[in-house]
């Protein structure tokens, strides 16, 4: 590689079909209200953790739906499960359970098939 002095840059595209959406299937099976999210961002605005870091539930939701699991895995542990998000969600998404289930799904390895 050195002899070229430059390297291939990784593709940024979300390859929907290549991505593994088993985590989100696992969650949706137990918490269908995740489907109701309209990405308004209210949860992120109210978030206690979001007060200290870039953690955003809205982002978590959409990343889960796209199967961008690695990102979710890194971010999700920041949540404090305080539950403010539930109180502000305009669509009644049980956000707390989504986080809880996501942690659980990661815990019992990602091999879960829906």
């Amino acid at each position, binding site marked *: 590689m050195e002899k070229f002095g430059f390297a291939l840059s990784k593709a940024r595209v979300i390859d929907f079909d290549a991505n593994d959406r088993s985590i989100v299937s696992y969650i949706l099976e137990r918490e269908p209200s995740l489907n109701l999210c309209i990405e308004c961002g209210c949860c992120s605005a109210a978030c*206690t953790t979001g*007060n*200290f870091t870039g953690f955003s539930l809205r982002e978590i939701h959409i990343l889960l739906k796209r199967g961008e699991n690695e990102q979710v895995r890194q971010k999700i542990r*920041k949540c*404090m*499960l*305080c*539950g403010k998000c539930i109180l502000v969600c305009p669509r009644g998404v*049980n956000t707390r359970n989504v986080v*809880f289930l996501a942690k659980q799904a990661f815990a019992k390895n990602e091999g879960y098939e829906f």
Partner: protein
Amino acid sequence: MKAMNFDPFVIPFNIGLYFILIYAVVRSVIWFRELSRPDKLRLQRGFFGKAFGQSLKEIFLESLIHRKILRSNPRLGYMHMSLAFGWFLLILFGTIEADIFGERHLNPPYKAIFFKFFSPDHGKTFFEASYAFLMDLILAFILSGLLLAVTKRFSSMVVGMKKTTKLKPLDKVALTSLWLIFPSRLIAESLTSGAYGTGSFLTGNLGAALASFLPANELAYPFWWLYSLSLGTFFVLLPLTRYLHIPTELFLIFMRNSGIRTGDKPGSFSEVEVHSCSSCGMCIDVCQLGFSAGIHTIQATYLMKGIRNSDYIHDIAYNCLMCGRCDQICPVGIEISPIRMIVRRIEENERVYENSWNGYFRNRLNVPVPKQDNKPSYDFLPAPASKKADVLYFAGCMTHLTPSIKKAMVRILDASGLNWSFIDEDGGVCCGRPLMLAGNDKEARELINFNSQLIWKSGAHTLVTSCPICYKVFRESYYLDVEVLHHSQFIKKLIDEGLVNLNFLQKRVTYHTPCELGRRSGVYEEPKEVIRHVATLEPTGYDDENSLCCGGSLGNIMLSQEKRHGIAADVTAKLTANDPDSLITACPLCKKTLAQATSSTVMDISELVAGAIADAPALKKNPSRNKQKVVRVSEASL
């Protein structure tokens, strides 16, 4: 005629009896062995200490008389009493009878149980007759209870219960055998009495009636067999059924009186508790998820059953408001919520106990404790820094969604003239309890440490919080040497010490006791006194221990928003039945949840007080510094 000493029909009974005795011993030994060292000591001390007498008393009152049930539901109580206490009497007096009237003393148990068979012509003399009368009386007592029990199965309304517990097949067999015991005894004794013209008002008359048109003597024998068989089956099946609670409960009472508590890990005590559940179903009636949200699968009794059978109970464990109403009502005094928390803490895929010997035993598996990653979850938090103050105000996450409470507290604290500081004014760190309720204690610890440092650094002597959730965890899981007060308690102090002047408002109000403040932390009186100080407090019929959960509880992770709303609607309907000026609560989460479900005004106690502050300057005084005992997490993991 000469009475014989033995007959083959007693064999089933004997087998059953000795089996159950041996089993009881073995199981007790196992349970004792699995106790932690300190608990072993506690138990020994308890057994040879004054706790012993206490235990006997409790066994008599609860296991036999069933006092708790009698209080809350007389008919149900009578049912349990007649069966338990009645049977106890029957055995007791049966043995005495056999001892006195048998031709020899110290008989094997079967002689007592089947006394009538072995000395059928007994009952001639007046003394004998009167004793027989006593025995008949006891039998009648039991049968009356049995009648109730049978009818309860078919219509639980009769004993005033809304739902009755669902049974597994083995339970059914055991139940039938239990039901058969006393009727078969009745028939057997009656027939024998009929044949010999003995027996008292029950067996005697029934016997005579039957003998008048039946070959009593020949018929009696099969019924003695039936009696013995049903006893035998019942004893043998007992360990597989909920009736195991009968012996287990005794063990439980001894352990509890010796000061053993559930703790936060599975162990003998929780095992004994689980097996002491008689599935009486009283927890089902008080559960709001049942009567307000139509969820009938997760109540305490089903949790216990699930654990006993080592079923998959993840959903049962998590789909619970953790309001503690079942802990309150349980006649056996099982610490239900701590047990639920234990199940939550255990990783879903790892089993701690496993049923063996077709369920006759449960062995503890020594599962390797999963290696926890030590990576901190909240390393993004800044270094905790707080300014010096005497009194700290920690609003809590939820309070930030109810600015009215924040405003009110600021008003009150300013009015008090104390040197106070608002530690989470621009958004703080969660207190950690929500994580605990989800079974993530390790993560919770991180937050606890952060907040603790914040509080230490301030050098304050008092910590006031508006959120009962925070209050509970501050008191129980934080290692603080400051006085932790919920704002209702704090306001009470201010009033007592004359630090605020309040006007009396012409208002009729009702008060909703938050679960975390009431049942969970035992704070009932202060809020009510504060309210009475500024308004007219009216009872709702759901006060103190009997208070309801608003439905918003963080204890439940799975509950859907509309079900929460349904619960809140029911609660507000009950609490505003007599149309008060406003419904007062002392928790931001309760306030938010209730307010969404009712048209009448819902207020936090602090708002009520702030509205009553008189402008006259309050006389300054230092708040007392008396510290409050700090409860450790181990003994109050819930």
